[in-house]
């Protein structure tokens, strides 16, 4: 390691500790931006679906697609199999569309974007001004850049580095724009991984999604920078329903980051997103999420209900996908990023940290569906429960008869902090051929007293010690994240657990 590197690292570590200390058990992103909004009327009906489509200037086929989804949705029942307890959601008591007034005429470049919106993202630490870097880590010219698509309530406010990406042939834009500009690509792939009628929440999303990101990486292209979407829910009583579609053509590579925050509100807010990833022959996609929606207060008042369907389809041989998620926010998390390993030799990986504190409830995991020969998957899940929280790992590993010589390794570890919380593991293992090997291991334990004692004897206070031990417990997953994200995640782990000790 060079001296310069050292300095940066030191700085960040110090920063992490200072941040932890500065926060007194509070949610860092809980402020709201006072901005004039344009709402669709409350409630959900075919008219609202039509309105959303019209607001986005969508072609007829898109509206038909949405309406088909809506008609399915009204006949579906909300799933209740997850270990989540929450009062009935009134789907008519939500706004399905909210757009900052200043976005009525779409700005042509970031310079034209309402300064209030830019300030919001700046305050969140998300630099929309090009050439700025994530996490405030100043680095010399030519270092890694991250292109950002920022989604504010129902609309994308801007995408950075578009020109530079275009040079490489990469398309990175709001999905509303892609529907208009690249209808053939969208038509071909939208709903091909997560069909309209996939599940209750995905179907709802198909009907009312307002915006999200679209990525296309052409054949043989290594995306020149990391792509990132930052989701911010700002308006009250508004659901966010974004849809992300990523297509990695043959032999391409992209690393994609996703972050989310929301203001503190007393009422629960609904978030039902869909992420679809299509990975063709020899292509690779890394998808990293730091989910930090407002979790509600210590008594479970307020917070985001997060119902997300994420799925990657490895369509070609040697395709590769890696999901990494750090789930610290939301009052309710219902999320199972999945891998369909269709192509021979394709690979899926899932690394997850799920932290539930206070009254949070998380039911999250993955599905690895092995269809092709010699397919490989790996699951590393770390669940941490504190306060009165319930944290469930739910996963499926399925080896189909034709998926010969395939391999899965699953490790699910749970850590309990305090005697009022719960940690649960619900894996499904289905093996239908004998040349494949499946291994599943799970453990549940509490924070090791000896490790805590050691840290305390070195002068750390109890919260710092717990944060350090928990970071150690999560190390395998943190290492799978891109560097800036890993640092963010590390400090988030500490903050999320504040107030859980003693």
């Amino acid at each position, binding site marked *: 390691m060079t001296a310069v590197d050292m300095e940066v690292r030191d700085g960040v570590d110090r920063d992490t500790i200072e941040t932890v200390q500065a926060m007194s058990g509070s949610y860092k992103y809980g402020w709201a931006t006072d901005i004039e909004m344009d709402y669709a009327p409350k409630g959900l009906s075919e008219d609202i679906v039509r309105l959303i489509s019209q607001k986005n200037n969508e072609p007829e086929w898109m509206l038909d697609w949405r309406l088909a989804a809506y008609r399915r949705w009204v006949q579906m029942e909300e799933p209740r*199999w997850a*270990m989540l307890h929450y009062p009935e959601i009134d789907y008519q008591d939500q706004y399905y569309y909210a757009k900052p007034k200043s976005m009525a005429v779409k700005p042509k470049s970031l310079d034209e974007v309402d300064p209030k919106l830019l300030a919001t993202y700046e305050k969140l630490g998300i630099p929309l001004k090009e050439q700025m870097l994530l996490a405030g880590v100043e680095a010399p010219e030519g270092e890694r850049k991250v292109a950002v698509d920022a989604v504010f309530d129902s609309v994308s406010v801007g995408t950075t580095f578009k020109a530079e990406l275009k040079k490489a042939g990469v398309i990175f834009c709001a999905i509303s724009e892609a529907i208009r500009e690249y209808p053939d690509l969208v038509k071909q792939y939208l709903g091909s991984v997560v069909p309209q009628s996939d599940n209750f929440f995905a179907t709802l999303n198909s009907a009312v999604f307002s915006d999200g990101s679209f990525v296309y990486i052409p054949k043989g292209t290594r995306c020149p920078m990391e792509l990132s979407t930052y989701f911010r829910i700002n308006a009250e009583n508004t659901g966010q329903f974004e849809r992300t579609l990523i297509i990695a053509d043959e032999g391409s590579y992209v690393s994609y980051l996703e972050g989310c925050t929301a203001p503190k509100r007393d009422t629960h807010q609904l978030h039902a997103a869909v992420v679809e990833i299509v990975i063709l022959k020899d292509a690779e996609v890394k998808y990293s999420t730091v989910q930090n929606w407002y979790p509600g207060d210590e008594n479970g008042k307020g917070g985001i209900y997060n119902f997300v369907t994420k799925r990657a389809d490895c369509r070609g041989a040697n395709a590769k996908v890696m999901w990494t998620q750090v789930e610290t926010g939301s009052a309710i998390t219902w999320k199972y990023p999945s891998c369909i390993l269709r192509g021979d030799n394709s690979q899926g990986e899932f690394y997850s940290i799920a932290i539930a504190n206070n009254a949070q409830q998380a039911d999250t995991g993955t599905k690895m569906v092995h269809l092709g020969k010699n397919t490989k998957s790996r699951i590393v899940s770390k669940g941490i429960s504190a306060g009165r929280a319930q944290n469930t790992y739910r996963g499926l590993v399925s*080896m189909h*008869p034709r998926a*010969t010589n395939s391999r899965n390794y699953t490790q699910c570890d*749970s850590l*309990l*902090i*305090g*005697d*009022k*919380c*719960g*940690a*649960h*593991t*619900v*894996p*499904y*293992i*289905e*093996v*239908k*051929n*004998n*040349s*494949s*090997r*499946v*291994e*599943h*291991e*799970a*453990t*549940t*334990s*509490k924070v090791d007293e000896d490790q805590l004692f050691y840290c305390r004897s070195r002068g750390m206070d109890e919260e710092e010690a717990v944060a350090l031990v928990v970071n150690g417990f999560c190390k395998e997953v943190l290492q799978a994240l891109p560097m800036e994200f890993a640092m963010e995640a590390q400090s988030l782990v500490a903050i999320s657990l504040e107030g859980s000790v003693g």
Partner: protein
Amino acid sequence: MTMQQAKADALAARLATGQPGQGGWLGAAQAAALARLRGMGLPGKRDEYWRYTDPTSLNAPDAPSAALFDSRGEAPPFSGLDRLRLVFVDGIFDQAQSDDPVLEGIEIERLGSAALNPSHWAAGLYGTLETRGQTPVERPFAALNTAQATEGVLIRVTGRPSKPVSLIYLHKSERSDAILHHFVKIESGAELTLLENGPAAARLSKVLEVEVADTGRFHHIRTQGRDHERRAVSHIFARIGAGALFKSFTLTANGRLTRNEAVLELAGADAVAHIAGASVGDGDFHHDDTVFVTHAAERCESRQVYKKVLKNGAVGVFQGKILVKQGAQKTDGYQISQSLLLDEDSQFLAKPELEIYADDVKCSHGSTSGAIDDTALYYLRSRGVPLKQAQSLLVLAFLAEAIAEIEDEAIAEDIRARLEAWLHRHEH
């Protein structure tokens, strides 16, 4: 038709075949069970708890016929042991073939005759453990059993009987539909070994309720008979008191359909429960082990060890759960489920669950599935061991951890010999 309606209809059809009316405490237990059952109906294919096993043939009003199995003079399990034998033929007690049920430290009575005695010790107990076992997961076939059973034994153990009690289930009629319900009560400090063997009937429904009082000890070893076409649904409901021990081992070989449910509650501190199963299947056979262990007290230990060897399309299912209640600190829970798939056609379906509400616990589970390890096979062959023998050796080694749960070495040896013979017969 809604799912709930389908379940109620299935139940109505099942009950149409006749409901034996009983008086006294047994009649009251039956009526209560029937009321429970009406609240749940019979399971459907879409029930989460029946995700991997189709209950259709268990729901059917009449037992599907099952050809008798010719064991070709082979000695039945436990033949060499000194034991008190109680024989049931197609689910009916056969006094002529049974031993006189008299043994020091133990009371044995037939369910039907005990029911006539209003002050019998089982009067307030019979069916209570089954009732407790209905939450949080419904077990309709257990309630159906309690609602209909008139045959079974009630065993109360007050000392340490000199030999095991052996329940032998003979299958003589191709269309027999047997319902057996036993209750075993181990008093404080008492100890019993209970053996069960045989296919029992074309279709068997069996409930075994076991109450182990503080410091009592209960050992259970059963083999379920090799009749290829038999179907069986069995339940063990056990409540284990402070410092008590419960150990159960089941060997399942073939059988068209076997669903073994075990519901164990560690109710007193320092209780120990071990439950294990070895199953071997060659052909159109379906074995399902569904286990639910509840830790309700401090410092208890539980182990679930399940091993399945499958070939020619045999399907092995394991649904296991460890539930640690709030306050059950210092729990040590362990669960392992493994399958060895000997060819391309077999399947292993598992759902090993943990649900934990206490922080100072040590719980782990593991589940693996795969073929015989080529490296190990190569090693044995390089040492001059013929292929078939090498495979058998490795399969036995794979099953060893489950058999190790049997404390009595003579019984363990008997089980081992049976597995070895099975492997020998099913080499091709």
